[in-house]
């Protein structure tokens, strides 16, 4: 497929896959480096809901964001942390991204990858998994994964070499934060520190765990 073609919708396009990488520069200070972060969003442009994982569906014309996170509750895939982090804390300024249209065959490959790789380790980190996931949908010349230890910084530099990259592409601020474990969806809220009051308060949503 010619490079520009995959950036245009086709009759069989069902979603827009966007790969983001942030190199950590704007959040590094006093010699203490921020190592950055990589994440992925899928915007459903079809008229039907798309299933990503067991029970994780993206409604028509909505977007879901996800990545691999190290938390003490779940070392693996978390959904919608990044839009909340950006909205509440202004994080990831200077992030780079690249997008492409995907079809049902790509989505099947993504589903299979997510089902098999819901685990975070320093080696199998956000950048490695997001790169591998992107490469499932990409032609050989535009693949981003390196066999060496993958980091958000390396991914950032790789995306800069690709045709059609963007800076600070807006990320949707909708959707609750959750992860899936043992076929259950666990909903979470992000706490925000109020600078003026120095209080911790809950921003939105409700805490719940339910069966899918």
């Amino acid at each position, binding site marked *: 497929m010619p490079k520009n073609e995959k950036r245009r919708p086709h009759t069989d396009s069902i979603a827009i896959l966007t790969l983001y990488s942030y190199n950590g520069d704007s959040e590094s200070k006093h010699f*203490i480096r921020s190592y950055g972060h990589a994440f992925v969003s899928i915007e459903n442009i079809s008229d039907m809901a798309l299933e990503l994982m067991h029970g994780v569906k993206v409604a028509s014309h909505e977007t879901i964001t996800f990545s691999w996170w190290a938390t003490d509750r779940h070392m693996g895939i978390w959904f919608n942390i990044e839009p909340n982090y950006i909205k509440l804390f202004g994080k990831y300024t200077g992030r780079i991204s690249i997008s492409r249209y995907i079809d049902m065959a790509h989505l099947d490959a993504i589903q299979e990858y997510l089902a098999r790789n819901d685990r975070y380790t320093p080696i199998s980190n956000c950048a490695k998994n997001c790169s591998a996931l992107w490469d499932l949908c990409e032609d050989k010349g535009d693949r981003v994964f390196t066999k060496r230890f993958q980091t958000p910084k390396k991914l950032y530099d790789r995306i800069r070499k690709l045709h059609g990259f963007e800076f600070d592409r807006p990320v949707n601020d909708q959707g609750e934060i959750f992860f899936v474990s043992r076929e259950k969806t666990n909903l979470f*809220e992000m706490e925000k520190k109020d600078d003026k009051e120095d209080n911790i308060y809950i921003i939105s949503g409700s805490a719940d765990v339910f069966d899918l």
Partner: protein
Amino acid sequence: MIKKIIFILFLALPTFLIYELFGNISRGLSCPSLSGDGKKAHFIGYYMVSAGYAVLSVIASTLAFIFFRKLFRK
């Protein structure tokens, strides 16, 4: 004089690593947490990085101590 310079260099690396170690712990502590199901989820990435710096700090400090002793025994 040369011994002093080498001594400072030997101290500089572990000092920098310990600085990074505490910097990352500080960042970890300032991270927002997530709440759900009556419990909290904490981002532990910075603590994982801190653990790496802690290991490096111990190695660098040990090496600095060994080289320092050798240097000043002569």
